[in-house]
């Protein structure tokens, strides 16, 4: 061993030298390769103009994230919240929601409702991102396009209050018969099937956004598929969209209110829903805002990040199957299930995220009553967990059903982390408290929907988000004719209240109907309230004025500005 130069040693040192030479070569090769790949990749994904900083003071721009790639920007077909976030920045309808969540004039300067007829007068200075004026024809074109059967828009139903819209959508009438007409370039006239009180709130929805006919036809079916395949009339416009990777918005120079957008650019630089990745990106200063999960709060507090909370305005509940052949059509069984659980424990002990609110009603907190909040004017029933009473109800149910023991119930659930948590929690809870065996049926999104529509469940973890700022968007959920009433709950009394809420023009009467519906849903255990979803999030301290709200873009940077570190 001590002898310095045996042949083996010489071989070893020679080999060592050779290997290090190879290692150097390998590293050099790797570097060259990476640059070649980078160049090749650059052909497909350009990240030009994107800063690496979450808040870029110099360029007056920010980097943010989207939870997923927006499926499409075509306003006529768009259905999802992520597209909604982007569209909220780049498009504007007749009316829109401002930074306080109030409905305000958008492209329409003023409007007037006269029975079934509504007239909108458009702003003279409203223009598209190519400089063309936004005209009433653009609205007429887009709305009729939505209703054309060939467009196959999933949200076309939201236009059904308009005269002949439903029939046109079903192909029974030509779309020209639909009650929307441009009287001239700046006047749009809408005729409704029947007078309703909340049309101005519906009209702020994405499906009512305009589109320019000439441009739409130029895109040959690819409208909204890429940044240059769309015209924008909002405060921002999309200048690049690298699918799956990033999306860049720049200030729209043609927007009618030049004072609104303060940022020069918003880069949605990352598209991911992985909360760990988002946290890491935020910690690394690469995004200006991130949502935090329960487990991340400690780290966030340790880092001394400013935290905010925000309720998304959606309610989550366990729907019960009321079809007569199902056990859950038995009232006492439903009552037993309801009494054995407690949404406080679910939210405070299991989900544990401060943004969440325990579910106490089918209406979320924000729903308006006559003068204030609906839930202040009509307080929801007070729920107390009562296991002994629940067991009594269960016994009654068994007697009524003529059963010794309850067969297992199927709990259909989605595959999101919270749904899984909730399903496992309830399974054990009902087993422990009532001895009911629950079989979890976890399905991916569409499979779950399919089973819900087919009624292939006893209980299903479900939720409902509002389409427009009126209690009716929740109140008609259990109307016997509503296809989203997946449990087929049928109750003429509830139906009657829904009719009142739909047709009445008197807000007091409508709100009272909401209150009654809320009571029926609790008393008859139409569903079991679980929670209202919310978020805890942190924003870069230099970025001010980010709006998070229920309607419009859920996260809205269009009012935001950067305050450089002066203080």
């Amino acid at each position, binding site marked *: 061993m001590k002898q310095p130069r045996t042949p083996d040693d010489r*071989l*070893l040192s*020679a*080999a060592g030298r*050779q290997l290090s030479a190879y*290692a150097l070569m390998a590293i050099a090769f*790797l570097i060259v*390769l990476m640059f070649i*790949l980078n160049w*090749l*990749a650059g052909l*497909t994904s350009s*990240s030009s103009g*994107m800063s*690496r900083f979450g808040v870029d003071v110099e360029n007056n721009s920010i980097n943010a994230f989207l939870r*997923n790639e927006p*499926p*499409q920007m075509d306003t006529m077909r768009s*259905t999802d919240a992520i597209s909604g976030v982007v569209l909220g920045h780049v498009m504007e309808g007749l009316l829109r929601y401002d930074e306080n969540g109030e409905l305000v004039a958008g492209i329409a300067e003023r409007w007037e409702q006269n029975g079934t007829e509504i007239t909108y007068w458009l702003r003279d200075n409203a223009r598209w991102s190519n400089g063309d004026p936004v005209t009433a024809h653009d609205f007429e074109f887009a709305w009729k396009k939505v209703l054309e*059967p*060939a*467009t*196959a*828009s*999933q*949200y*076309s*139903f939201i236009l059904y209050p308009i005269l002949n819209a439903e029939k046109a*959508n*079903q*192909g029974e009438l030509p779309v020209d018969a639909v009650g929307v007409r441009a009287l001239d370039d700046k006047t749009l006239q809408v005729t409704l099937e029947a007078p309703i009180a909340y049309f101005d709130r519906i009209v702020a929805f994405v499906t009512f956004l305009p589109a320019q006919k000439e441009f739409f036809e130029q895109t040959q*079916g*690819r409208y909204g*598929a890429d940044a240059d395949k769309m015209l924008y009339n909002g405060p921002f416009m999309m200048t690049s969209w*690298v*699918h*799956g*990777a990033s999306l860049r918005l720049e200030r729209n120079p043609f927007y009618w209110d030049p004072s609104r957008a303060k940022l020069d650019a918003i880069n949605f630089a990352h*598209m*991911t829903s*992985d909360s*760990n*990745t988002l946290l*890491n*990106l935020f*910690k*690394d*200063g*690469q995004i200006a805002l991130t949502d935090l999960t329960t487990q991340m709060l400690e780290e966030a507090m340790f880092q001394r990040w400013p935290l905010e909370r925000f309720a998304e305005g959606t309610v989550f509940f366990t729907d019960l199957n009321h079809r007569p052949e199902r056990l859950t059509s038995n009232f006492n069984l439903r009552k037993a299930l309801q009494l054995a659980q407690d949404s406080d424990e679910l939210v405070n002990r299991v989900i544990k995220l401060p943004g969440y609110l325990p579910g106490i009603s089918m209406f979320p907190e924000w729903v308006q009553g006559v003068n204030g909040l609906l839930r202040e004017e009509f307080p929801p029933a007070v729920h107390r967990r009562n296991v002994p009473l629940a067991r009594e109800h269960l016994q009654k149910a068994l007697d009524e059903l003529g059963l010794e023991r309850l067969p297992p119930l199927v709990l259909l659930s989605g*595959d999101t982390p919270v749904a899984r948590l909730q399903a496992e929690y309830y399974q054990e809870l009902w087993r422990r408290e009532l001895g009911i065996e629950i079989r979890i049926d976890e*399905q*991916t*999104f*569409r*499979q779950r*929907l*399919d089973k819900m*529509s087919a009624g292939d469940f006893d209980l299903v973890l479900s939720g409902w988000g509002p389409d427009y700022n009126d209690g009716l968007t929740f109140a008609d959920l259990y109307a016997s004719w509503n*296809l*989203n009433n997946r449990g087929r709950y049928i109750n003429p009394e509830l139906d009657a209240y829904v009719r009142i809420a739909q047709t009445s023009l008197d807000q007091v009467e409508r709100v009272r109907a909401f209150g009654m519906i809320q009571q029926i849903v609790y008393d008859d255990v139409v569903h079991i309230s679980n929670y209202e979803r919310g978020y805890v999030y942190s924003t870069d301290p230099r970025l001010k004025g980010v709006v998070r709200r229920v309607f419009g873009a859920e996260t809205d940077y269009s009012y935001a500005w950067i305050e450089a570190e002066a203080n």
Partner: protein
Amino acid sequence: MAAYVLKRILQGVLTVWFIATATFLAMHNVPGDPLSGERATNAAIQANLEARYGLDKPLTEQYLIYLGNMMRGDFGISFTQQNREVNDIIREHFPVSATLGILAVTFAALGGILWGALTSLYRNRMPDYVIMFLVILGISVPSFVFAALGQLALVNLNSLLGVSVLPVAGWGTVSHMILPALVLGLGTMAYLTRLMRSSMLEVMTADYIRTAKAKGLTPTRIFTRHQLRNAVLPVVTVLGPAIAAITTGGFVVELVFAIPGLGRYFVQAVQQLDYTVIMGTTVFYGAFLVFMVILVDLIYGWIDPRVRLK
């Protein structure tokens, strides 16, 4: 030779057809409806949607249309991104996966060969033990754990140094690629290191090395021309399958690092039941795999004259 190549290609085409048919049948037996949305659709809207995607036609007709379109290289329109063609999706996202895959395989191959050679030289000494311990880690820890821990380590390094050494996620520049490629290549690198090590040990005792030593060749020449060269051959054999496996198996890394690769799209498409994207991706990857294997076989026959193609 030409006949052999032709035969292989023909077989490849047949295989792709088989994959296409299998996927088609699988997709049309999946429970669930790709057209259902969060809001229940009425019959009219549902009919409009089905007509748009040709789902209202009988299954055999759908199959023929599908095969016909595929022959023309047209995989149809995505169900979730209703105005994007599957071709566009593959064209835009496959290069990302491929880039990542190539880089990962390169990392794995170069690292594996170097480490393997090194451990064999220092057999049963400190470097051997250290590297083999790391190899054991690389083999036995699931990639998603590596990905998450790697990202966490990087973000802490960045915040410790106060500068962003490497971006923690995303895609676009060289710096974005390094960590994901490393994580993706790690398992393969560990495997190749082991392979290279045992291959080196086998070669070291081979007769031709003894002959070379006896001939009095310089150690450098013995090492590079005889030992390394022969030891590398088995490593090259497994590279073909490794490239294919890595390129088509990058889901985890793509998900964790928010990389817009085809793998992530595929997982999303499966969750969303996006028929056309699932079928398109599967057929595309199948074809890619088949022809990759053919290519590797041909190249291998060319490198190693001992392997004769018949």
